[in-house]
Structures are given as structure tokens and as C-alpha cells.
């Protein structure tokens, strides 16, 4: 019953239905799909983009956008690789800090200097990508074989569950809790729903904005560490195109690009849908990898048209 109630909550209904349809289709079409191994595999594959999409959900909830996520994943991943052989603590903490710091810079440029989010984060995307190329001289930075514990972050398992999946779920839960149950979380919704009213109600709008972009940066830092650990190398080209995947997952998940409505639960299913499509392309075998780009584009297109229509319906009703 509880499940049914949950499905009935308006915002997530569409995405969960889409998820179920896709899940059943995949199960029927591809025999290897419905196995614990494959499903764990999908979860592990989506975990990093999923973590980035959590941050993106915060950003889109305040009616912003963050195009720099892929580059931030790369730059923090590279930093993590540098320290992986020396100190595991630093290899985790420094990239997280760097991610949060660069995110905060995004936020400050947007909130204080009033540059539109997509230009500010676009510049950050280019700048951070450039920085990671410079730092690595465009080569991969290998993680030493001796960093055994470090490599567990991306490659390890806890029982049957891959560690990245555990981290993803943990962050998902924390984000869910923050958005639902803390004053900050509610301010995020308030700001995205009506910025002027939020200001009038005494909310320190700029602070919330900077915090939100910092969170997005922090999530990129986390994804960067996991990715580097998983690949055994920090790559300056990592995370290319992740911004669109994260935006698509968020939009498909029902978070309105116009802000104020949605949440990480929907984003979770959005991420799963993207992951399942990739998985199906792989299982199908004859479709090429670039279909991922096309399908992501089409899904985003559908999501925003649905959102635009929905928005118009609400306007005409009121």
C-alpha cells in the first residue's frame, strides 16, 4: 500500500511509470538483463553520474543550471590521482574541497556578480577543463598499484553491492533528507519557486545560491574520486558530456527546469532510465555508442516539452 501511495505522489508518477515500462521491456527483450549481476552493473555504471545529478537537482531546483559538472569531475579526479599514492585521506578530502570551492566560485559569480548561471558555469567548464589538461599535460595520471585501499572506493564490493553504489545511495539519502526536512532544503524550493517572494520573506537568497552551487561542486568532487579510483587513473578528459546526462536525468526525473518542483527521488529514476538505455544498447550489440547522445537528447527534448505543456496547463488553470 505504501508503495502505491508513494507512486501516487504527483511529481514522480511519470518517471516511475516510464522506468517500469522500460524495465519490463528490457526484461522481456534481453534475457541477460534481469540478473543480479547485470542490475548491480547498471547501478555501478550510473552511480557517478547519479551523484553528479544529485547536485544538479539542487541547482535546477533553484532555477539554475550547472554546465561545469563534467569538467569539475575531471579536475577533482586528476587531483585525487596525484595524492592517491601518498595519502588516501588527502586523495579524498582535497578533491572534495576543490569541487566545493569551484562550485562556490560558480555560486559567487552568479549570486554576487549577477552573471547568468549558464554563462558562469560554462566559463567554469572551459576553465576547469583547461586546468585539468594543464595539470596533467593532457596525459592520464595513473594511480599507483600500491594504493589498494584507495582503489576499493571505485572497485570494491560490500557483499554483493559495489562500493560506488553504496556511496551513491548514501548521498541520495542525505540529499533527500536535506531537501525534505531541513530549513535549508525548504529554502531551496522557496527560492526556485519564487525568488522575489523568498527575498521578501527574509531568506538570504545569495547565501542559498552559493551553497547550492557548492553542493553541486562537492558532488562532482565525490564523483571524481570514485571515477579515478575505478579507472585507476585521473583523466583530464573524464566527465565529458556529463552535464547533459545529469541535466537530462534531472529533467526526466520530473524536476522542473523552471525551478521549485521536483527532488532527488525522481532524479534517481531518471538516472536509472539513462543507465538502462545504455545497458540495452550494450546488450543489443549492434547499436553504436553515439546512440547514447542521440537518445539522451531526445529524452531531454520530450521531458522539457512535457514540462512546458504542464506549465502552460497550470497557468491556464489559475
Amino acid at each position, binding site marked *: 500500500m505504501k508503495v502505491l501511495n508513494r507512486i501516487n505522489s504527483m511529481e514522480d508518477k511519470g518517471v516511475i511509470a516510464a522506468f517500469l515500462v522500460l524495465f519490463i521491456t528490457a526484461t522481456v527483450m534481453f534475457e541477460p538483463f534481469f540478473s543480479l549481476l547485470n542490475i548491480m552493473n547498471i547501478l555501478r555504471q550510473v552511480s557517478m553520474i547519479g551523484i553528479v545529478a544529485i547536485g544538479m537537482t539542487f541547482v535546477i531546483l533553484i532555477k539554475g*543550471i550547472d554546465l561545469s559538472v563534467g569538467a569539475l569531475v575531471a579536475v577533482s579526479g586528476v587531483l585525487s590521482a596525484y595524492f592517491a599514492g601518498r595519502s588516501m585521506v588527502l586523495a579524498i578530502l582535497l578533491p572534495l574541497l576543490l569541487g566545493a570551492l569551484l562550485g562556490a566560485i560558480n555560486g559567487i*559569480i552568479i549570486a554576487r*556578480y*549577477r*552573471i*547568468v548561471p*549558464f*554563462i*558562469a558555469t*560554462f*566559463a*567554469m567548464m*572551459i*576553465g576547469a*577543463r*583547461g*586546468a585539468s*589538461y*594543464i595539470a596533467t*599535460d*593532457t596525459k592520464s595520471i595513473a594511480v599507483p598499484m600500491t594504493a589498494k585501499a584507495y582503489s576499493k572506493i571505485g572497485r570494491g564490493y560490500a557483499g554483493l553491492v559495489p562500493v560506488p553504489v553504496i556511496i551513491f545511495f548514501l548521498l541520495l539519502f542525505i540529499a533527500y533528507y536535506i531537501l525534505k526536512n531541513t530549513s535549508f532544503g525548504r529554502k531551496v524550493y522557496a527560492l526556485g519557486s519564487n525568488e522575489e517572494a523568498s527575498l521578501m520573506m527574509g531568506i538570504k537568497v545569495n547565501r542559498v545560491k552559493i551553497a547550492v552551487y557548492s553542493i553541486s561542486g562537492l558532488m562532482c568532487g565525490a564523483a571524481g574520486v570514485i571515477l579515478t579510483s575505478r579507472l585507476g587513473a585521473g583523466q583530464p578528459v573524464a566527465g565529458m*558530456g556529463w552535464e*547533459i546526462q545529469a*541535466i537530462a536525468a534531472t529533467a526526466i526525473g520530473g524536476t522542473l*527546469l523552471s525551478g521549485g518542483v521536483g527532488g532527488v527521488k525522481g532524479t534517481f529514476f531518471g538516472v536509472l532510465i539513462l543507465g538502462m538505455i545504455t545497458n540495452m544498447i550494450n546488450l543489443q550489440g549492434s547499436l*553504436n*555508442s*553515439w*546512440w*547514447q*547522445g*542521440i*537518445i*539522451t*537528447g*531526445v529524452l*531531454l*527534448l520530450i521531458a*522539457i*516539452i512535457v514540462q*512546458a*505543456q504542464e506549465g502552460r496547463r497550470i497557468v491556464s488553470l489559475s
Partner: protein
Amino acid sequence: MNGKTLSLKPAVNGISFSKHGAAIIFILLMILNGIFTPNFASLGMLRNLLLQVFPIMIVSMGMTIVISSGGIDISVGSIMAVAAAALAKNLGIGIFPAIVIGLSIGVVFGAFNGFLIAKFKIQPMIVTLILMVGGRGIAQQLNNGYVISFYDHPFVELGLYSISGIPIQVFVMLLVIASVFILMYYMVLGKYIQAIGDNLRASELSGIKTFKITIIIYALSAFFASLAAIFETSRICSADPNTLGRFMELDAIAAVAVGGTSMTGGKANVIGTVFGALIIQLITISVNMNNINYYYSLILKAVIIIAAMYLQQFRTKGTK
């Protein structure tokens, strides 16, 4: 006009930084390079600059149109890839038909952008983001993921053609700049585009068909991107769906921002964009020639965009 009204406020003539800033910066950069960069001051260098700035220049012209209408188009790089792929795929049926196909497919994609923006009132950035990502996938699909090279095809002569030593790109560039200049300042369509960027509602109430014009705006942007792609493809003798036009949106937006076109729409500065594009390319070249890592130029461009937009705020504030 009588003398009394004329004396109310002197018209702002002469050199103003917002109007001519890009030209001033360009000249300064040229002088600095002439002093510090070895082998900079040479004819070959000038030729190189003009050749290399070609795609940025052409795409920035389209971007000037889009930005002055209050929009943005970040799909230009992918549209270049699509147009190049469509062209390369159809070279077998003749050079001219292949060019027409490449251009038309690009224009259709642009019109699609414009349609979505006008019809669903979605932010241009999101709409063009879709094609930015999806477009590259389509380009790869058209080419089956391969780089199509055609070193021995007569098509390559197009990009290498020159008239009394001056590369054909220079003529195309001049033609495009002149066309956009005329469009924006002498044609009604240009007036409508800038009016929409300045005050959409008032334009609509003045009987301007904003829906149709929005489609034209993005189709034009895509047309110029495709045109740039055709010459680039010919010059480098291959169509690479992965790399052609990558970061082109960055360069074009930077060129327009530096050139002094208001990022919030309403006022196109076509000549400013010309210098803006030259500056962006000059940065890339100076970085290269001084053996500085190319990627520093990316960071520099990112800073330039933010700085240009930040400075623009003061200008618009000052006049309101």
C-alpha cells in the same frame, strides 16, 4: 531639427570604449605580440590569422544575430559537425549538391531550435543544449563514427583556393560580415530581430511576427555554422564528427561578448564581433607561438567572457 533641441544633450560620438573597446584591445594585442612574440610581424602570420579565424568569424556572425535577439545558441559546434557529416556522406553525388545538402540540413536543425523556442517558450540555452549533445550523436551516426577523409577529392580545392594569393576564406568572410552588417543595420529583418531582443512584448504589439522571426534567427545561426563547417571540412580534407566545431560555441559567445553586443539582447555590434573574433583567435595564436600550453587560452577565454559580461552590466545600468 532646430538648434535649440540639438543643444539639449550632445550626441555621443567619437570613440567610446563600449563601442570600440574590442578594436582597441585587438590593436593592443597586435602591438604586444609584435614586440614579444618571435616571428609575429610577418605576412605569413597575417595570412594564418585570417585563415584560422575563419570558422570563429563566420559562426560569431550568426551568434551576434542570436544574442542580439535576446537568445543564445550553444548548438553551433554540433551543427557544424552534422553539416560536415552530411556533406561528406553525399560528396559522391557531386560537390555542389553535397554542399547544398550540408547547408540545408544545418538550416533545418537551426529552424528546429527556433521552433522549439518560439512554440514552447523554453529557454534557448536548454533547447540548443539538446542539439549540442544530440547533434554530435547524429553526426557520428551519419559517418558511422568514422572520420571521413578525402585527400584526393576535388572538394579539397575549395578550401585551398586563393585569388592572387589571398585565400578564398578571406573573401567569404568579408562577404558574410558585409551581409550581416547590412542585415542588421539596413534591413527590416535586422530591426525586427533587435527589437525582439530589446522588448519582445512591445515588438509583438507592434505587429511583428515574433514566432516566424525566432525561427529565422536560429536558422540563420545554423546556416552560418554550416557554411563555416563546409570550408573547414575542405581545408582539413576530412569531416570529423567528434572534434569539428568543439568549443566553437565558447569562442563565438566570447567573440560576441567581447565585441560589445549586449548579452541581454537588443543591440548588435557587428563590427565589434569582427574584432572580438580576431581577439579570440589572436589569443590562441599568441599562446601557441609563445609555446604556452594551449589550454591556458581556454582559461583566459573563460575569464574574458565573465569579465566582458560583468562590465556590460555597468554599461546598461549607467544608461537606465
